[in-house]
């Protein structure tokens, strides 16, 4: 433990070569959570970034070791809280794979639609938050106007707006709301009309482009070596969409493009996410009229027990590849569970790509990496 004088001394201390060492976070407006970056500065230029994690570490992996296969899904909603549906899907898929549970078609299609809605909501929030990091406040409100419609749909069907906990092993917890289809269609219609509004406000803006183009360039080799996934890697030209590589739920029957940009800078990451929203809309449009009738949950035993062995399930969240790795000893609880979270790998690349740039660039880079801190800490 530090004494009071040590803290004051630490605060005014300089780096080894007389650089300014600034603690960004754990309470900082641009880290969007309790991320602590120790930034070594030479004037305005960044010399080194050292992430310190753990401020929101809840040891979800340890908690899951004492929860049953029905219970542990609800904890995962709290990891990447912006893709909680997708996290739940990953866990449900893993249990279904481990126990060979047959999932009804209706559940598969609804899950896919909900996953894509979650992805759009997450990207919407990201656009707003990233524009705010760059000093533009207004896009936030425009993006939230559409995001609000999605959270309303979620509230109707799942009963919650953020941590939905709607997906269970075998299918869905209960059937969709009767208004689900009409509301989703209304959302798709409004989204297509209004998406141009904040795109006009952000994409074409000269200041925005000069702030993001050529900033935080991540090469394809580095993206692979650092284990980056999702829009971050796709902006560097790496094909890594799990929905294409290892299709789950209803992704094998819908048509969509894997969005690839090659520049690898912050602007490319922005463009990937914007285009991805349009692809998600495309997927939703294909499925929304095709929701089959029938059961919403498959037949499962009351007590779920995975066979002895190891299971791995990966899904594509809004931030990248989420992997769930379970080592089972044949009991009702997992022996060891590991979440390969996309944010953790994406964060590890921050020092590499932001070194040598200005403080303002760090905000652009960090913003476009789309870090969700509970996802990194778990």
């Amino acid at each position, binding site marked *: 433990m530090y004494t009071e004088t040590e803290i004051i001394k630490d605060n005014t201390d300089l780096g080894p070569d007389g650089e300014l060492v600034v603690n960004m976070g754990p309470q900082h407006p641009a880290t969007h959570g309790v991320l602590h970056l120790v930034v070594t500065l030479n004037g305005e230029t960044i010399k080194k970034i050292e992430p310190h*994690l753990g401020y929101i570490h809840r040891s979800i*992996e*340890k908690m899951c070791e004492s929860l049953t296969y029905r219970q542990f899904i609800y904890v995962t909603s709290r990891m990447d809280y912006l893709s909680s549906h997708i996290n739940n899907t990953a866990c449900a898929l893993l249990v279904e794979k481990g126990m060979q549970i047959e999932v009804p078609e209706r559940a598969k299609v609804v899950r896919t639609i909900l996953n894509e809605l979650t992805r759009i909501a997450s990207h919407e929030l990201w656009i707003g938050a990233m524009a705010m990091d760059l000093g533009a406040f207004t896009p936030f409100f425009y993006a939230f106007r559409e995001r609000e419609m999605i959270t309303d749909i979620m509230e109707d069907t799942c009963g919650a707006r953020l941590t939905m906990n709607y997906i269970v092993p075998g299918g869905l917890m209960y059937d969709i709301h009767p208004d689900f289809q009409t509301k989703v269609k209304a959302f798709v219609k409004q989204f297509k009309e209004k998406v141009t509004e904040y795109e006009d406000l952000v994409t074409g803006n000269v200041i925005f482009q000069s702030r993001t183009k050529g900033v935080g360039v991540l090469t394809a080799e580095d993206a692979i070596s650092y284990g980056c996934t999702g829009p971050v890697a796709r902006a560097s030209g790496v094909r890594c969409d799990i929905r294409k590589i290892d299709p789950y739920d209803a992704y094998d029957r819908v048509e969509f493009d894997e969005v690839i940009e090659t520049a690898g800078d912050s602007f490319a990451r922005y463009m990937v996410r914007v285009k991805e929203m349009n692809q998600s809309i495309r997927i939703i449009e294909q499925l929304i009229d095709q929701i089959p009738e029938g059961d919403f949950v498959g037949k499962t035993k009351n007590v779920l027990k995975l066979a002895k062995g190891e299971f791995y399930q990966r899904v594509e969240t809004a931030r990248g590849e989420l992997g769930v790795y379970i080592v089972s000893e044949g009991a009702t609880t997992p*022996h060891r569970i590991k979440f*390969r979270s996309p944010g953790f790998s994406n964060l590890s690349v921050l020092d590499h790509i932001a070194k040598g740039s200005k403080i303002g660039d760090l905000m652009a880079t960090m913003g476009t990496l789309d870090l969700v801190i509970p996802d990194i800490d778990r």
Partner: protein
Amino acid sequence: MTNEEIKTYITAHASEATFDETGEWLTILIESNHLKSLAAVLRGQPMQLDFLFCLTCVDFKTHLTMVYHLTSSSNRNINIVLKANVNSADPIIETVSDLWRTAEFLEREVFEMFGVDFLHHPDLRRLILEEDFKGFPLRKDFDDPINMIKL
């Protein structure tokens, strides 16, 4: 490459490797002191497993097992699980962070959660826990009478 081809290729380079095909993906079990050389073989041509998508450790009470999930960015259908057992009392293993940069952070996490010591790691410090934290939380013998809820 089919599993058989991979197996013959790996056996040619690391004769002591054993295989397990019961899981979804091909699992290679190797002794911890040979892990680094096998990892380098897998990373290099012609396998080109350049994407380490999961690195973790499992506590089996008798021993710890390091688990590396590897795939190739050019062919994502090849997935290989590499495993190496280390003893619980004094776990030491060679780092792979020079082959896959992502391992640098993941190994730091394993270092503080399981106490595995990674040789030649460039920056082996605590990432998540406080400096004065005692014990390795993800090990099975870790006990925290205050904060842990037992069901």
